[in-house]
């Protein structure tokens, strides 16, 4: 079946602009995660949604970052007033629940110029 999809695959933006990154999880998966993959920091957790529970936002690096998940499915990660250090690959993953394997999307490569 279809895996996790993300869009856009690449995004180039100017410093100070806002960006929105989208994730479509595997149908039926209740858990959704956002991670960031960057040269200096490796792979780091950003935010986690599980069903109707309040999201775990403990990994968001600043209040410029936010995410929502509508209808328990699609998620959008928003970065306001982008900075050059936000340049990274943003990965989304989903799973059937918190004890199950996470399936990763292809990522969105964000470049802030």
């Amino acid at each position: 079946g279809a895996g996790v999809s993300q869009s856009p695959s690449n995004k180039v933006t100017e410093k100070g602009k806002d960006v929105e990154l989208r994730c479509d999880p595997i149908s039926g998966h209740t858990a959704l995660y956002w991670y960031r993959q960057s040269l200096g920091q490796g792979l780091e957790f950003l935010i986690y949604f599980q069903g109707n529970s309040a999201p775990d936002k403990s990994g968001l690096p600043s209040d410029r970052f936010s995410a929502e998940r509508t209808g328990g499915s699609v998620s959008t990660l928003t970065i306001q007033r982008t900075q050059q250090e936000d340049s990274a690959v943003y990965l989304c993953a989903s799973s059937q629940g918190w004890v199950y394997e996470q399936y990763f999307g292809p990522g969105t490569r964000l470049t802030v110029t």
Partner: protein
Amino acid sequence: AQRVTQPEKLLSVFKGAPVELKCNYSYSGSPELFWYVQYSRQRLQLLLRHISRESIKGFTADLNKGETSFHLKKPFAQEEDSAMYYCALSGEEYGNKLVFGAGTILRVKS
């Protein structure tokens, strides 16, 4: 705090040689340990997890709680094993979010 350490950024071996990718962790509770792999131009995917005790593509990993290690091993490397390998940790206290090591690039030379 939970932490995963992969001491080698790059490991280069010849085809047919044994491979060991090192992973050490720190965690106060009962961790779940994973190895994820990312082949060139492919998405990150699960290779194996310690609770399943499986051997995937000839790779095995044993959780050693005394040494807090979860090293990935394969007796005979193949060229198609060349990839980035990440060790990751999760635990009930932290939901299911994964804490990743920095990753090790494995290059298998012919």
